[in-house]
């Protein structure tokens, strides 16, 4: 009987631990949003940001105009 009681208590404790651990993980994920992923998978956001960057760089040449011929 003692053994059964112990097993029931142990299983209960384990379940509580698991539930607590799982919910804390979910909370962590929600709090710690991966901004790399959310931004780089959003084409609209990327278009907006790359246009901003282009505006800033619009007068900067990307490379030499003297390059000519085949490589």
């Amino acid at each position, binding site marked *: 009987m003692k053994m059964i009681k112990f097993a029931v208590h142990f299983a209960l404790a384990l379940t509580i631990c698991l539930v607590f651990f799982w919910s804390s993980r979910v909370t962590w994920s929600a709090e710690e949003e991966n901004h790399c992923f959310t931004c780089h*998978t959003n084409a609209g956001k*990327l278009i907006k940001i790359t246009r901003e960057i*282009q505006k800033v760089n619009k007068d900067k040449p990307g*490379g030499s105009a003297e*390059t000519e*011929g085949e490589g």
Partner: protein
Amino acid sequence: MVEPLAPHEKIWVDSSIAEDEYHGDLGCHECHGGDPSDPNWKTAHDGVVKDPSYPDPSGTCGACHDSIAENYDKNLHVSLAPFKKMIDMRASDDKDIHAKVDGARQRHCTECHSSCGQCHISRPEAVEGGLLDGHLFQKTPPMHTVCTACHGSRIEKEFLGKNKGIPPDVHKKKYFKCNKCHTAEEMHGDGEEYANRYEVKNGPQCLDCHEDIYEPQAANPKSHWIHKDQVSCQVCHSMPYKNCYSCHVGTDKQGFKYYKTKASDIQFKIGLNPLQSDRRPEEFVTLRHVPVDQDTFDFYVKDGLTNFDQLPNWKLTTPHNIQRHTPQNKTCNSCHGKEELFLLEKDVKPKDQKANKDVVVPPERLPRKRSGS
């Protein structure tokens, strides 16, 4: 030439990467650095590494693909070692001048390397980069956006038949992509330090597939036997190909580096094999003019390549425009006695004569016209 991607397309990531069985669990920052918890994109990118597989892939791709990564440093697509070797051989013996030439080489001739990422994840940086298929890992790099994006002016144009009047390679017509001949094992290197790509042991050879050309039941065994180890396959089966001349590099007023080559032309020239070996025993091979010139680095240092004559600038080549029937293999005398097909002294500029003395075909070695053919 491959069309460049729009700026946002270059960095767009397909969300289905999260479902990638092998790479989906990795956080972006684990390879690229940066701060994924920072909502401000400007500061979040502090310390971001665009290509974490270059120059050292051991902490990223190599952590799992260790057997491939261990050969990385000696992989010719990464090291570009033959470039250095060839330029060093041509450079002046004067230490200061040699160092200036080496500086110019590092500035201008080390950009066209590849890396794990620049074949399997993005287009190579040398062609403006941009993610392939939204960062989904490509087991086989796509031909148009990776291989021929770099190997464009010669290989792509030959293989796809983009040189005016010259048909595509017969293998292209059979829907071959680069990797049909150039295997992953060849691309990843085998750990040996090769002096040039023609030495690579697991590089492709025509005989890998066409092993029966000497058999009696083959289409033309007699011709193949007669020419065995005398001429390379390309001498009979390639079409005219591109030759480039006079490469000059420098830095413009704004500090940008520039590259200039003079006119290129389409020619076909047979010459003496400068790299005769067990693997390539043929006496006659196709030769291509490469753009290096005595004064390529003159912007940085005068007389930098005083040992220019150490190496020919008509080099062994294996054009990628193979045809079964070519103008030079129609009959024996389509080649024998046809001086214009061979690299003769008169075809080489006076200042390049010494450099090319070992590849120019002397009159006594020209195959004579055959009677009755």
